[in-house]
């Protein structure tokens, strides 16, 4: 046995009446890891989290925490602490009482409670607000109280259920950074549930992409972004243009795809190309470059027509008609340079083979 996993999910399944919310999930979470469960709403990520915390009982499968099977162990006896989506702060208790609640329930001595609550409030930068009620706090402050309340009990596993979704964008970005800092300081094994891919990419050690109750892909943020294994992941994380086609040839370490809308794309082999000949080529908008001149190359150059240009600040976005579909292209805007692209203009799209992903259709 190698390094012990703090959490182990084996064949975890949850059925609600006739829907399967979580479908046979297997996952190991290492000690101190910051793991993200990422997926659209209804993909079973929250249900998975609730099963780890003991707030939901699995229909089948096993949950192990620190090597111990905890199926049937009630939430109060599990070494987990949850930060809830709307924070679920006790409205009739002050900040101190909220944060101290877990220690009080565990019958810790008073001095210990006072000291630990103070330390935790310092850690989340809330000193000075000890006697406020939740109704007297801002969203960001409530968020910090919820985090402190969960951390103060020093859980083996910290569970966060979309804790930032109720905050506005600025605050959300700030809290991302802060939660990551605190998580690293305390080095507590953490499971963070979100539907926000930028959140996951920015904070995670490892991301588990979920869809319809199943795991689509597990990997580092970098890996998930650049090497999605399915159309779903590629579409959900970031933005991707999908061009359907079929595999025409496999030459050395490249694959050639004949596109349905005309044109050939050569893509780098990643070693796990799908067998079927019907595929889609996924291309990120920022990986495409535009040019006026027709290239002599017969591969990886597509001819289209600019339909719309949108100025986005640091970048500009193009809608390019290609066949009967639209390809989105994103380009960095140089300071002072006016866009030299105009709607209805003919344009050539160039893509490097390394930036093309061949995925099952």
């Amino acid at each position: 046995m190698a390094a012990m996993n703090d959490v182990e999910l084996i064949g975890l399944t949850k059925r609600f009446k006739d829907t399967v919310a979580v479908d046979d999930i297997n996952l190991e979470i290492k000690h101190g890891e910051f793991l993200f469960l990422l997926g659209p709403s209804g993909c079973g990520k929250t249900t998975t989290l609730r099963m780890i915390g003991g707030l939901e009982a699995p229909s089948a499968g096993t949950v192990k925490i620190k090597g111990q099977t905890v199926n049937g162990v009630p939430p109060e006896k599990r070494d987990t602490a949850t930060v809830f989506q709307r924070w679920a702060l006790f409205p009739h208790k002050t900040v101190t009482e909220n944060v101290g609640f877990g220690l009080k329930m565990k019958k810790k001595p008073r001095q210990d409670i006072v000291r630990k609550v103070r330390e935790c409030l310092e850690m989340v930068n809330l000193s000075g607000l000890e006697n406020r009620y939740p109704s007297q706090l801002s969203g960001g402050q409530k968020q910090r109280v919820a985090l402190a309340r969960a951390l103060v009990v020093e859980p083996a596993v910290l569970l966060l259920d979309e804790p930032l979704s109720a905050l506005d964008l600025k605050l959300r970005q700030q809290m991302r950074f802060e939660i990551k800092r605190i998580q690293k300081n305390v080095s507590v094994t953490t499971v963070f549930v979100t539907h926000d891919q930028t959140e996951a990419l920015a904070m995670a050690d490892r991301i588990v992409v979920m869809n319809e109750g199943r795991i689509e892909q597990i990997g580092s943020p970098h890996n998930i972004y650049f090497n999605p294994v399915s159309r779903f992941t590629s579409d959900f994380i970031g933005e991707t243009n999908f061009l359907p086609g079929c595999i025409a040839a496999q030459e050395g370490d490249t694959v050639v795809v004949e596109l349905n809308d005309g044109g050939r794309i050569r893509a780098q082999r990643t070693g796990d190309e799908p067998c079927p000949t019907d595929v889609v080529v996924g291309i990120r908008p920022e990986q495409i470059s535009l040019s006026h001149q027709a290239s002599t190359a017969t591969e990886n150059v597509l001819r289209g027509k600019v339909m719309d240009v949108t100025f986005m600040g640091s970048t500009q976005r193009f809608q390019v008609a290609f066949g009967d579909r639209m390809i989105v292209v994103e380009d960095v805007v140089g300071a002072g340079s006016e866009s030299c692209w105009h709607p209805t203009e003919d344009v050539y799209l160039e893509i490097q083979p390394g930036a093309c992903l061949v995925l099952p259709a």
Partner: protein
Amino acid sequence: MPTLNNHPGWAVQLKQVFQARKFVWIFLPSVLMALVFFFIPVFSLLRISFYENVGMGVYHPALSLNGYIKFLTDPFYLRVIFFTLKIAVLVTSISLVAGYPVAYYVSRAEGLKKIICLLLIIVPLWTNLIVRIYGWFVILGQKGLINTLLLNIGLIDQPLSMIFQPLSVVIGLLDMVFPWVLLIMISVMEGIDWSLIEAARDLGASRFQSFYEVTFKLSIPGVVVGGLFAFVWSMGEYAVPSLLGSSAQRTISIEVADQILTVLNWPFGASIAFTLFMISVSVLFISNRLTQKNADYMIR
């Protein structure tokens, strides 16, 4: 679009109207109504309570505390006050203790179950009060439902006297106040976020601890308001004790009616009425003080 600037929305207009006090007369009917049918009678009753009684319905203007002193010192009337308080406290405690679990159950019920529960609580309120009181005659009377049943089974030889007793007064009052106490507590308990209980469990509270720390503490405002409602109504209720009670054990409200309608001693009747009013007001005031901390976070 210049028209937008020239014509502010209706909400803004309404606000301007109120600020300009142009339409204050809108409130006139309700203010007039309260004045003529509540404040003036109550005020004249307060005045009469200090008058000197001559007898046979005649009284002189004066500033006498005789009525109040008599009511608050005479052993006979002290018994009346004590009996009324006893009944009110009993009705309040029973409706709170028995009502709490029911209210909790209904507040957590869902769908059809909840609708049925609420209907069971509300439908009796659609029946006229006097009809409901006479219903208790049929059930509790000498030849009523319960006595006939118990006699027929042979559990008793003599009919039990259940009517015209403190017991029947308590039952009748419970019939009046119980649905309202339930509705008040249900409405407060429904507002308690279920995730708070999950949060408490998650942080190590047992089932009982999470109930006490979250559900119970957050339902206190409902208990207080429901309890006050039951207490104040039981203190002042006239129809139930006069129809279901015995003539030997009288309540304050019966005494008021007696003094004014039968003895024709208006000043004394008015003193009693005001004492009752003050008891209720002070109970409201004290409980408001005691729950101030609770109210603080609820309002914000």
